[in-house]
């Protein structure tokens, strides 16, 4: 005769082990989420990654003459690619090509050919116009169209833009026109007159993020 009657435990052994293992696996699994932090490095906004800013000089992007300031005579109705060149925190010249989305497309058309919706205020005498050269679809660099003269075509997915009409989309998948960059003439040089008029790629569908970036840039420069 036993003195103690065996009581049924509140939970079975199997259940206890299952719950314990499940909890361990869940806690362990969630802790692995911290690994995602190392997968996504912190972004630091350095001078070479800033977007084109007021006062930046436009320089050639073509490899053979990279960094040489662009003169009016270099431009025509054929696309010329340019980088904005500004100063870093020590005052040295820095080509802002750390962000490849800073690449610009420059055109010079005879007076009167550039029409709305291009912002004529932001061009040089209504003749020289600057756009972001990055397709608003998948971020490829847009070229002159080899099919229709006077148009731009993206080699990736055939997005087409009209550079005389504010780079509006005239064919293909891009959702937005190319962003126009305000420029002015300063002696022989072309100088950026301010931020892009509309959010450029990859901010073209996220105005808030573009505003954040502008604010971040202004804080970094202040």
């Amino acid at each position: 005769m036993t003195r103690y009657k065996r009581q049924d435990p509140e939970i079975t052994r199997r259940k206890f082990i299952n719950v314990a293992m499940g909890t361990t696996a869940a806690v362990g699994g969630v802790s692995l989420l911290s690994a995602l932090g190392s997968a996504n490095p912190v972004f630091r906004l350095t001078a070479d990654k800033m977007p084109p800013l007021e006062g930046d000089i436009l320089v050639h992007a073509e490899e053979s003459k990279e960094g040489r300031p662009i003169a009016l005579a270099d431009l025509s109705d054929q696309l010329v690619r340019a980088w904005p060149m500004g100063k870093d925190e020590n005052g040295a010249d820095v080509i802002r090509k750390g962000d490849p989305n800073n690449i610009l497309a420059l055109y010079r058309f005879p007076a009167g050919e550039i029409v709305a919706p291009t912002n004529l205020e932001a061009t040089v005498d209504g003749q020289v116009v600057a756009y972001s050269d990055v397709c608003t679809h998948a971020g490829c660099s847009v070229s002159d169209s080899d099919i229709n003269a006077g148009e731009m075509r993206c080699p990736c997915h055939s997005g087409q833009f009209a550079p005389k009409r504010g780079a509006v989309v005239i064919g293909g998948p891009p959702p937005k026109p190319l962003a126009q960059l305000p420029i002015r003439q300063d002696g022989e040089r072309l100088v950026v007159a301010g931020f892009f008029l509309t959010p450029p790629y990859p901010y073209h569908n996220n105005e808030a993020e573009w505003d954040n970036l502008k604010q971040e840039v202004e804080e970094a420069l202040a």
Partner: protein
Amino acid sequence: MNQWLDDRLHISRLNDKFLRKAFPVHHSFFLGEITLFSLIILILTGILLALSYEPSNSMVVNSFDPGTADAPNLVPAAYHSALKINAAPFGDMLRRIHHWTANIMVAAAVIHMMRVYFTGAFKKPREINWWIGMLLLIFSALTAVTGYVLPYDNYAYNTLKVIYSIAASIPWVGEWVAQAAFAGKFPGDGVIPRVYGYHIMLLPGILLALTGAHMLLMIKQKHTQPQYAKRVAYKKIVGVPLMTQQTPIMLMLTLLFAGIIVLFSAFIPVHPVEYFGPPSTTPIDNIKPDWYLLWVFGVLAIIPGIEFDFLGGNINSEFIGAILLPTLAIGAMFAVPMLDRSRENLYYAENPTNHPVRLGIGVAFMMLLAVWSVAGYKPELISSGILSTENANTVLWIATFLIPALSYFFVQAVVRGIRSLREADERDRTTHAAHADD
């Protein structure tokens, strides 16, 4: 020595259990094997390439064209090492073999899947193996794409940019996902080490594990038997044993296959990195993905520029074309075994003409992918004057619906023709047999 090994490892048991395993013989059953041989060649050449490749996108002086002391010619280290591999004895050949085999592996896998689909080999009890096969296809494509990026020439750079922006186009989480997958904002300092890690560790590991599971399930569930096996011995396994009949066939096939690949590689160059040059601002004209992703590219080329906000996320044509539609297509392929209602286990490969609807849908699906692949050549179609900028999208969208539908009905007509011929044969045979009795 056999005795010595046998005493310790019981080799003879292995022999009875495994090496005598019967392999059914039919030429279409070698497609899966070719895929497996490709994987082996890819791993071997990949190891050799990894020995000389430098996974880094930091800039180094190009030793082939150093420039001047004032203006050194800087190129990414990965691109530089690709140049060095090309310059090494047999180096270019290794790259070509690796590249060609990758293409052939995907091709063999696709044809292997077509064989499985058209003969109904995905049916109960082999549904799980169809799903594993689908995963193998997806991960093969991912491995190929990440391998594409590694030489880090201008072509690879532009490809990577598009891949990044496709990842970033996912609503709500896209930008974060793209940055986490490719080590920060494009082009992050760590992007090449990251892609290299995917290409040589993560993805091949997944591929090998899935391949192992694929083989084990095949052995466990037995291969489908060819139709002639039904006549030879009903519901018995008909085939040749692995040792020693199947092995020479496989060896012959491997050697022939390896020979063809080396021949291809010797005469048809692939991806000349020197020609494309290091990453630059100049876009590459008519850049295209490899043929097995051309259909996604085609969808992107003809999709209209849609964009709308949905619950705070941005849904654009890139997401719809490059992620949503392919997911639907792949989802449809995953669903194939679930659409089948048979309860019986399948033993014999079915004659495709006995299942005209399945055959028709399969052909229509492939025609759809073919139309979209042609749409990938939209710029060429326009510049050659076959289509114009104005009508290209309309024509290609009509073709998207029309050609698969037409091919479905065409298949039905052909099947009906084949069946009536077969019935006529049958009638002839019975009448002849009746005459013979007289």
